[in-house]
C-alpha cells in the first residue's frame, strides 16, 4: 500500500509540474477568434455580388421617363446579363477564401485537441477495474492530459503555422481583389445608378409645374431612394475595409507564426478582430 501511495505522490508531483507548463501549449483564444471572425466576414460577400446585377436592373428601369410605367423584365435582365454572369465566378472565388478560413477555424478549434473524456474513461477504468487508488488515478489523468495536449497542440500549432505562412500571399491577393470589386467596382455601379435616378427625379419634378403636393411626394421618394443607395455604398466601403483587416490580421499571424503566445500579438490580433466585427455589423445593418 505504501508503494502505491509513493507512486501516486510521484505521479501527482509530475502532473502538477506538467500542468503548470501546459498553459504555454494552448492555442491563444485570439487566434481562434480571428479565424472565426475572418470566416464570418467573408461569408457576407453574396449580397454585394447579387446587387451588382440588381443595381444594373434598377438603373435600366430608371432610364425610362417617369411617364412610362413599366418595361419588360426580360429586356432589363437581358441588358444586365453581363453583370449576372459574373455572379458564379465571384461567389466561387470568395467561397475559396471562406473555405480556407473555415478549415483554419476547425484546426484552431479547441475541440480537435481536447481529449478529456477519453482520458477520464481510461483513468476511471484504472480506478475501478484495477482498484487503483484515487490520488494515483488523478495523477495518471493529469499526466495523460498533459501528453495529449502537448502532442495535439504541438501538431495543431505546426499545421496552423505552415498553413498561414503558405497562404498569406494568396489571402492578400484575394482580399485585395475581392475588396476592390466591392469597394470600387460595385460602388461605381451604385454611383452610375444614383446619377440616372437623380436625373429621372429632376425630370419628374419639372412636370409638377408648381404643384407643391406632388413635389413634396417626389422629394420624399427621392430622399428615401437616396438614403437606400447611400447605405449600400457605405456598406460596400466597410466590406472592403473589413477584408483589408482580414488581410492585415492574417499577415500578422503568418509573420509571427512561431510566437503566437506573445502578448503584443494577441493584443494586436484582438484589435483586428474587433475592427472586423464592428465593420461586419455596419454592413449587416445596411441589409442589402
Amino acid at each position, binding site marked *: 500500500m505504501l*508503494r*502505491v501511495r*509513493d*507512486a501516486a505522490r*510521484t*505521479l501527482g508531483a509530475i502532473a502538477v509540474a506538467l500542468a503548470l507548463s501546459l498553459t504555454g501549449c494552448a492555442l491563444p483564444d485570439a487566434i481562434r477568434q480571428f479565424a472565426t471572425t475572418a470566416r464570418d466576414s467573408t461569408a457576407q460577400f453574396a449580397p454585394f455580388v447579387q446587387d451588382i446585377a440588381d443595381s444594373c436592373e434598377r*438603373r435600366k428601369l430608371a*432610364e425610362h421617363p417617369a411617364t412610362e410605367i413599366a418595361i419588360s423584365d426580360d429586356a432589363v435582365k437581358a*441588358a444586365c446579363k453581363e*453583370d449576372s454572369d*459574373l455572379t458564379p465566378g*465571384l461567389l*466561387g*472565388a470568395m467561397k*475559396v*477564401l471562406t*473555405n*480556407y478560413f473555415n*478549415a483554419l477555424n*476547425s*484546426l484552431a478549434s479547441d475541440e480537435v*485537441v481536447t*481529449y478529456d473524456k477519453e*482520458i477520464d474513461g*481510461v*483513468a476511471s477504468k*484504472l480506478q475501478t477495474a*484495477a482498484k*487503483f487508488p484515487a490520488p*494515483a488515478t488523478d495523477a*495518471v489523468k493529469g499526466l*495523460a492530459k498533459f*501528453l*495529449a495536449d502537448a*502532442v*495535439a497542440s504541438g*501538431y*495543431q500549432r505546426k*499545421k*496552423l503555422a505552415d*498553413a498561414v505562412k*503558405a*497562404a498569406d*500571399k*494568396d*489571402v492578400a491577393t*484575394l482580399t485585395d*481583389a475581392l475588396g*476592390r*470589386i466591392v469597394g*470600387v*467596382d460595385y460602388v*461605381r*455601379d451604385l454611383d*452610375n445608378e444614383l*446619377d*440616372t435616378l*437623380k*436625373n429621372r427625379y429632376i425630370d419628374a419634378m*419639372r412636370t409638377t409645374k408648381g404643384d407643391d403636393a406632388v413635389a413634396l411626394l417626389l422629394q420624399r421618394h427621392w430622399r428615401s431612394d437616396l438614403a437606400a443607395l447611400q447605405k449600400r455604398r457605405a456598406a460596400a466601403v466597410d466590406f472592403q475595409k473589413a477584408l483589408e483587416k482580414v488581410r492585415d490580421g492574417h499577415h500578422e499571424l503568418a509573420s509571427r507564426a512561431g510566437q503566437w503566445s506573445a502578448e503584443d500579438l494577441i493584443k494586436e490580433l484582438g484589435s483586428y478582430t474587433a475592427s472586423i466585427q464592428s465593420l461586419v455589423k455596419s454592413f449587416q445593418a445596411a441589409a442589402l
Partner: protein
Amino acid sequence: MADMTPNLIDALADQALKLKIAVGEFRNTFFDTLTQAQRDGLRTLANQLGDEVDHLTAVAIRLSLDDLKDALSHLTGITAGVNDAVAHLGDVRKVLTVATSLVGLGAAIASKDPGTVLAALNDTVTAVKG
C-alpha cells in the same frame, strides 16, 4: 498598346462615369434652352454612357477574376491540407489513447500490485488494437 489590366479598365470606367454625369448636368443646366430633340438626344447619350460604365466595370471584374486563378488554385490546395490535418488529429487521438494506457501501465508497474498491472496491461493491449 497597354495591357488590359483591371486598373486600366477601372480608370476608363471612372472617366466614362464622369462624362455621363457631365452630360446630365449640361442637360439640366440648359434644359430650358434646349429643343425636345436635343433633350432626348442628351438623355440617350447619358444612358449609353451609363451602359458603357456598366460594361467596363464588368470587364474589370472579369479581368480581376482571371488574375485570381493561380491564387485560388493554390489556396484550395492549402485548405485541403488543413482539412487533412483536422482529420489527422483523429489519428493523433488514437496515439494518445495508447499513450494514456502506457502511462497507466507505468503507474501500475510502480504499484507492484499484480492485479493492477494485469488490468493496465489489458487496457494497453486494447488501446493498441484500437
